[in-house]
């Protein structure tokens, strides 16, 4: 029947008389009022007095009820439903806390081993009353039935601690476990094996409410003071053109001092190490200078490991160094000049730098100095270059393998040489006589970028000279003049793309560079050229964490681990009709580097330990038990069998809700005075 969590509040029951006392002593002195229609008042006197009495009685009653409800809430009244003697036998549910916090070393042994010993002991003691044992793993929220004779340490360790574990809040996860498939029969007993680790006393309070409500017996696995070192990355600090320093904080989140070492690995190779000595709940900054090997700007995969503490779970931190340099553009200047503004590529390089900033690096060379390694560049621009045949092989190979080339024309162009090159999109010839044309427009809708999406652009641009072109079918005209002359043509060649601009990119043949439309034009042109190139992105994550990546073509995306093996069932791709999509990823439970390959994006996921359990600021075991003991559950050893449908119904919420209704009614009655 009814029982109380804090019966001490019942001693305060006499305060329900307060409204009566207030009513008796709180009579006010009336104000005198000479009133001529007094005889009329006499007629309604009895009616008023009767109503006043009823009103006062109702008000006192409501106030008494309100105080009573609040007192009962404080007293923690609950209802026992069903009978505890309804069954003498049944299956027992063993809920096991296998979260990372029980993987701590305590007294030279894993805390989980103590936990498993406790399970074995419990099974042995209760095998006569429990018809079977169902073990529920809190970290995975799954359960399995295991015959009592098969419950052995090695088997259980394997099954309970097979993965790296998931950070859990006990008071959040326990209800899920309790509500999962209890079924009609219910369990004869429910036992929780846990270190009862909680972040706050409020959490302990919430947990103890659950334990009380479901008659859960608790086996508290005591923890000795431990040291726990873990890493928090601060980042990479550049110390020179080709140098950077990796800075990490080594934190001791345990109650004992930490003496150990911190090492930096690249792959399996140790490339740095430092001894550290950290008092409890303190941190120390450690700096590593990874050897640049002459090229510090390549991406690198690091691992920092601390050794020598009691809690291995969070000892390794994976770090990724992303190359600081972005896209690279090589401008081949066919007509250099001593005056900078007269140079062929001056306006183009200024526009690229203005729009893209540091994310695009622009290199300018003369036409006879094209580097031997063009693959280092994302885009090569050939501006008013005299002949293409000098570098034909180099350029053809570059384009075939996916490179992007923009050819802009000018007075130095040898049209015969150009027309002999197979990757040129069209046959060109310099227009012999030409009336200056005003304005040009976009003829390929796919070219419209955010800054060019207007029909009014370019209409004032004046083109004095340009090249006549004859284009085959596989070329695509992107821009044309008002007089229908092709201005920008693209052609796919191998895996790459070639763009042909039929006038000069400087001011020799047109006034576009001094128009306000020049910058948006260059920006859109280069964005078009960059598109389709693989973008590299990376994200840091925790085990089981959900990540969402927008704006990617995630069709046929696959997740691979560091060994190149496919990791299954982690990705959900929501693809839009235009090919862009959202990729939802659930991080793997094992720490390390993972890649997700997509047609246009390569995503690197760096999974590290969840640090929320690393700060082992826990109350001393005695204090934890005393907190639960005060309510008479944890560690008390008292076992309450749980029969079919037999559980405690917490009435506090109902009482408070009822009290709120009573209060509202009381205010309503008050207002009707």
């Amino acid at each position, binding site marked *: 029947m009814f029982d109380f969590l804090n019966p001490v509040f019942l001693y305060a029951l006499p305060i329900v008389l307060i409204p009566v006392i207030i009513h008796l002593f709180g009579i*006010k*002195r*009336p*104000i*005198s*009022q*000479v*009133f*001529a*229609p*007094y*005889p*009329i*008042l*006499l*007629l*309604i*006197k009895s*009616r*008023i007095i009767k109503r*006043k009495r009823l009103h006062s009685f109702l008000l006192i009653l409501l106030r008494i009820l309100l105080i009573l409800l609040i007192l009962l809430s404080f007293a923690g009244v609950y209802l026992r439903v069903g009978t505890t003697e309804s069954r003498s036998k049944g299956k027992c549910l063993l809920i096991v806390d296998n979260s990372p916090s029980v993987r701590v070393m305590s007294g030279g042994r894993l805390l989980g081993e103590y936990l498993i010993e406790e399970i074995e002991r419990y099974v042995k003691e209760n095998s006569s009353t429990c018809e079977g044992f169902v073990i529920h793993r809190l970290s995975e929220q799954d359960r399995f039935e295991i015959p009592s004779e098969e419950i052995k340490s090695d088997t259980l360790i394997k099954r309970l601690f097979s993965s790296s574990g998931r950070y859990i809040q006990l008071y959040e996860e326990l209800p899920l476990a309790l509500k999962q498939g209890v079924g009609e029969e219910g369990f004869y007993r429910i036992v929780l094996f846990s270190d009862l680790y909680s972040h706050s006393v409020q959490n302990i309070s919430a947990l103890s409410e659950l334990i009380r409500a479901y008659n859960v017996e608790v086996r508290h696995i005591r923890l000795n003071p431990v040291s726990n070192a873990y890493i928090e990355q601060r980042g990479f600090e550049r110390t020179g053109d080709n140098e950077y320093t990796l800075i990490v904080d080594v934190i001791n989140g345990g109650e004992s001092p930490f003496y150990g070492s911190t090492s930096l690995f690249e792959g399996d190779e140790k490339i740095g190490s430092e001894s550290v000595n950290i008092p409890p709940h303190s941190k120390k900054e450690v700096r590593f200078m990874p050897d640049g090997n002459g090229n510090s700007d390549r991406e690198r995969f690091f691992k920092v490991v601390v050794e020598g503490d009691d809690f291995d779970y969070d000892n390794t931190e994976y770090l990724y160094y992303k190359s600081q340099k972005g896209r690279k553009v090589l401008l081949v200047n066919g007509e250099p000049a001593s005056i900078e503004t007269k140079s062929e590529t001056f306006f183009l390089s200024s526009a690229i730098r203005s729009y893209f900033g540091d994310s695009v690096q622009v290199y300018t060379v003369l036409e006879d100095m094209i580097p031997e390694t063009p693959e280092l560049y994302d885009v090569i621009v050939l501006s008013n270059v005299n002949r293409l045949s000098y570098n034909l092989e180099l350029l053809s190979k570059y384009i075939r393998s996916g490179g992007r080339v923009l050819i802009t024309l000018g007075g130095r162009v040898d049209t015969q040489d150009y027309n002999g090159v197979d990757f040129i999109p069209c046959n060109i010839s310099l227009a012999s006589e030409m009336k200056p044309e005003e304005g040009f427009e976009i003829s390929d809708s796919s070219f419209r970028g955010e800054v060019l999406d207007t029909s009014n652009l370019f209409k004032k641009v004046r083109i004095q000279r340009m090249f006549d072109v004859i284009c085959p079918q596989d070329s695509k005209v992107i821009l044309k003049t008002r007089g229908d002359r092709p201005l920008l043509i693209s052609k796919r060649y191998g895996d790459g793309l070639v763009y042909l601009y039929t006038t000069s990119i400087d001011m020799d043949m047109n006034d576009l560079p001094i128009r306000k439309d020049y910058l948006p034009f260059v920006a859109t042109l280069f964005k078009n050229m960059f598109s389709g190139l693989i973008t590299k992105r990376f994200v840091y994550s925790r085990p089981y964490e959900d990540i969402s990546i927008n704006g990617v073509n995630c069709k046929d995306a696959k997740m691979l681990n560091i060994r190149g093996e496919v990791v299954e069932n982690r990705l959900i791709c929501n693809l839009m009709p235009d090919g862009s999509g959202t990729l939802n990823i659930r991080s793997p439970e094992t720490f390390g580097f993972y890649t997700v390959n997509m047609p246009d994006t390569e995503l690197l996921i760096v999974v590290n330990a969840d640090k929320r359990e690393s700060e082992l600021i826990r109350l001393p075991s005695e204090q934890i038990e005393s907190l639960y003991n005060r309510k008479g559950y944890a560690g008390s050893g008292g076992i309450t069998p749980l029969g079919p449908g037999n559980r405690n119904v917490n009435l506090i919420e109902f009482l408070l809700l009822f009290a709120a209704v009573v209060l509202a009614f009381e205010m309503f009655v008050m207002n*009707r*005075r």
Partner: protein
Amino acid sequence: MDNISRIQSSIDVLEEFRRAVLESGVVLDEIVSGIHRSRCSGNNIEFLDYRDYVYGDDLRYVDWKLFARSDRFYVRRFDDNKRKKVYLFIDYSRSMDIGEGNSNKFFRAVLLATVVASIFLRFGDDVYLIFNGEIIRLGDAYGNPVIPAMVRVYSQRRFESIDIFSNYDGILEFLPANSVLCLFSDLFSDVQSVVDKIKVVSGSGVYQYIFHILDRSELNPSIRGLRLFIDPDSKEEMIIQADNIWRDYQEVLQEYISRIRDILTSNRSGKYIQCPTNVGLREILLKLFER
């Protein structure tokens, strides 16, 4: 109050009454034009005696033959059974002393009585004022011109803790049949007793005009909080939480008024006219002549 201010006050009241009588004359002209001004048709008039002419007497009643004989003006007096005897009865209990200045209930009662008296006199009726145990015949001919007489009544007011209705039916002893009784009162006395007395008078053949004088605060009270209500006449007391009682009060008051109105209208023995102190004289006169 010194003599000068008392005289000034009386002059103010006189002026107020005179203006009210003039206004009533205007209203009356508007309302009753076309109606015969006198209820005396000339039939059934029997000569009674002579009396000396006084200023204001109708020259039609001067006996010119007697003047020729005696060289003095005499006026003929008739016993006229069509001529009504109108009695004005003003409540002077303490409950009538509510309100300030012109909004005082008693002031309004006397003002209305003045107007009513002048109207009846204009119709040629005999008007008597019953006040403070005396019966005064009003009219210039009888040495009691209406306005000065009423000013005197108002100036010499002395409120008493009495139930004026205790003797209301006793008035019947000297009231001739077919006479008219005009009551100016707030009717705040024992409710059942008031109703009974009005019923008795109503059954006796006397026509009653009941001018119910009410202060605005009595019609629609706005008193709040815990109050000790005191009856101004009986000095009885009652404690009431006065926050939510006024709807009931108004219901009962209206019920009381309805009962009085029903008595008067059921056998056509009178008329009830509600006279809140904040309502203009014209409106009240319109109600008076309303059929």
